[in-house]
């Protein structure tokens, strides 16, 4: 079920109402049943995969807690292998098999391993990582094993964040699933406002820009450099609004029921470096890699050379996490490289950075533009269907300056309006956080007028063809 569908509106109203109508002891059941229905609305049979990982990790969690020494570690490894195994089969098997076929083909050998005709379960990487964080935290002793099977199942399947995060940590969400939530006016209203903002990002910005982006990226050879540059910038905005819009809806939806999910985005395109970008973009994933991979590999406590190597490994894996395609691997590698270069150049940047005044403002603006440019260039690999397509698009940039493809002036005008509105609002949030808070204005008529205006902006300028969220495929 898509958040941007009318079915979801009905589903959300029914589940939230039932959640507050039923007594506390049955609420987990309401949410779990709702989450199962939500997930099964995509491909019903894939709930069995979720069920399998839930059973494995539930048993593993309790067993790890009851064990010591090597057995404890062995149980953790079994659980991780089971999770990663499922991920490998459904997400990477065919990719690896294709590569093996190419490799064997070079030696005139046929690949004897069959191709699997399977669909990738929606949001597999998200709930697998969330499940893994549970067993790791139990192993580390930071989290008690969950004895209530229903609550544990809900931890993995909680519908707002089931298919595209935020990837939660058990310490944050499990206690909330046990806690009794009473109806809170503040939570309900702020949650709904956040959902409205998420719908704006998805329907008015992301889905509008996707019309142009798809036209260019799906026909890479037809478009000149100007069109490619516009499409790349549009895609940077599209993917941000698509994913952060989803996160806003998820966080808002959970908040209305009294759950506090972690923040996933903090206006990343205002970052002044790639390092800062990763502290603002998909925070739940970047902190996952930091906590469960980068720090165990030595973190910042190792030699610079080892640290650079670790960074590259983490970002390569982050790329692979996104999908079984060389485009994602290159995207991850590029970000790793950017970070390494950022660290290498740190002494220089620290020396030339002005401390105050206009020079500092100009320096910061320049840093933001440079960061945005690097991120946008790397998005070309992320969005392209293949490495060949990405290289074709990059080579098309040679003709930058030619008359661009507009994809229809009406749609292009809508794209520009959407970006303008987004920029204006995000700029206010970033640099004027305590001014012009129209949704939270003390005067009721300002609040109602701004909320009504937002609703009609969505109705008048949104795209309602029900486009899927990009991150569902991961």
């Amino acid at each position, binding site marked *: 079920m898509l958040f941007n*569908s*009318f*079915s979801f509106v009905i589903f959300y109203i029914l589940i939230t109402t039932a959640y*507050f*109508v*039923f*007594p506390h002891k*049955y609420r987990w059941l309401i949410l779990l049943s709702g989450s199962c229905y939500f997930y099964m609305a995509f491909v019903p049979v894939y709930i069995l995969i979720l069920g399998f990982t839930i059973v494995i990790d539930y048993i593993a969690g309790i067993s790890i807690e009851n064990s010591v020494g090597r057995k404890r570690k062995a149980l953790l490894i079994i659980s991780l292998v089971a999770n990663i195994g499922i991920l490998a089969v459904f997400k990477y098997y065919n990719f690896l098999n294709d590569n093996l076929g190419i490799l064997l083909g070079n030696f005139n050998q046929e690949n004897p391993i069959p191709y699997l005709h399977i669909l990738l379960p929606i949001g597999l990487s998200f709930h697998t990582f969330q499940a893994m964080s549970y067993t790791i935290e139990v192993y580390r002793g930071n989290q008690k094993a969950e004895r209530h099977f229903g609550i544990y199942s809900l931890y993995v399947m909680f519908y707002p964040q089931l298919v595209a995060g935020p990837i939660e940590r058990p310490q944050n969400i499990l206690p909330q699933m046990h806690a009794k939530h*009473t*109806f*809170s*006016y503040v939570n*309900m*209203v702020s949650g709904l406002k956040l959902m409205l903002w998420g719908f704006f990002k998805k329907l008015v910005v992301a889905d509008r820009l996707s019309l142009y982006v798809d036209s260019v990226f799906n*026909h890479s*050879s*037809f478009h000149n450099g100007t069109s490619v540059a516009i499409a790349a910038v549009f895609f940077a905005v599209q993917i941000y609004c698509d994913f952060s819009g989803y996160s806003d809806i998820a966080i808002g939806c959970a908040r209305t029921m009294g759950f506090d999910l972690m923040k996933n985005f903090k206006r990343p395109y205002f970052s002044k470096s790639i390092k800062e970008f990763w502290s603002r973009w998909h925070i739940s994933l970047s902190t996952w890699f930091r906590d469960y991979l980068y720090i165990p590999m030595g973190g910042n406590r190792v030699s610079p050379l080892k640290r650079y190597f670790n960074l590259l490994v983490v970002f390569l894996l982050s790329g692979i996490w996104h999908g079984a395609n060389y485009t994602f691997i290159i995207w991850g590698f590029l970000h790793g490289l950017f970070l390494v270069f950022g660290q290498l150049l740190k002494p220089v940047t620290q020396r030339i950075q002005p401390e105050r005044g206009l020079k500092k403002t100009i320096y910061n603006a320049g840093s933001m533009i440079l960061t945005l440019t690097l991120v946008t260039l790397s998005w070309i690999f992320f969005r392209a269907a293949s490495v060949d397509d990405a290289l074709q698009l990059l080579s098309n940039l040679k003709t930058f300056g030619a008359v661009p493809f507009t994809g*229809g002036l*009406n*749609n292009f*005008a*809508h794209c520009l309006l959407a970006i303008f509105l987004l920029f204006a609002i995000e700029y206010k949030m970033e640099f004027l956080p305590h001014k012009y808070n129209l949704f939270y204005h003390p005067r009721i008529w300002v609040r*109602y007028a701004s*909320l*009504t205006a937002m*609703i*009609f902006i969505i*109705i*008048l*300028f*949104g*795209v*309602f*063809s*029900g486009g899927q969220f990009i991150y569902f495929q991961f």
Partner: protein
Amino acid sequence: MACLAGGNLFTFNFSIAMYTFFKKLVLFLVIVISSDRILGWCMKELYFSQKTGQFADITYAIDSARQDIIIFGSSRAYHHYSTSILSQQLSRTCYNTGMDAQMIPFSCAMQEAILSRYQPELIIFDISPWEINEGSEKYEKLAALSPYITHHPELLKYTDLIGPWENFKLNSKVYPYNSSLFISLYNTIAVDENKSANGYVPLTRVMSGKEMLLNKVKIDAEAKKEQEQQKKYDQQAIQLYKDFLNRVDSAGIKTFVVISPALYKSTFNQETIEKLKSITNTHIMVTFLDFSLDPVFIEKPDLFSDIFHLNKKGAEIFTGKIVPYFKDVHPNRKELYSNNSSETL
């Protein structure tokens, strides 16, 4: 306030917070619904006050067109059939309902709306082979019909094809005008020099030879890519196509299904064209004309505006070429077409 909805299971406290929330929610909904009515009225006035542009052309076609000859189709119909040439040479009035970015479902909707008012003497239905390929875009574009459903309920079944909740969404008075504000404002405020001639808008741009060659390489690459994938037909679109033909058969209107000229000689679409032809040939009033391999147009960039569309010169040559097929139009045409005819040039 306590509310008991039966047994212990459903006992819950209707708290002050809930009461406050619902009170404010009702107030907010009243504001939103009232605003929807007011803004919807403004949008309607703006939309239907347009005198030029595609929206005005749709309005005219649905509500007022009564010409002898009606042309249906996509952008290739819109830009390929000169209504003035057809009118002059056939001594009949003519209107072109073709529309950019639209496909079979839109043509069907327009046909049904028009046939509910009167019967034209001749129908020309320009179709492109890819219109029966799988893809949801052809249905999403039907949103262009939304402003008309209040006075044309026969269109509801088409807007329903957009999505399962589409007709429910149309309860909003603003929603039918989604994405139309800029165009409506432009057509109302600005002077549109490109006013259509009875629905026909010629394209003035001329392709260069270099552009044609450059695009040929790309087209071949894309065609190769598509050939590698198994072709899937959209059964719903095929059914709509059959419905279109069934309606002209029942009404006894002489109809020509035309595949207009292409820039590149390609055999890639031949399988689809054959499929369209075989469907067409089962309809007594319908003649199938295929110009996709017509040598007059193949690799003649000066006759094209872009790789898909003829320019003004190309459209005039093409319209002149097809006129002889329509010459024998008369009301009792049904008897003359006892044998199904299918012609390929």
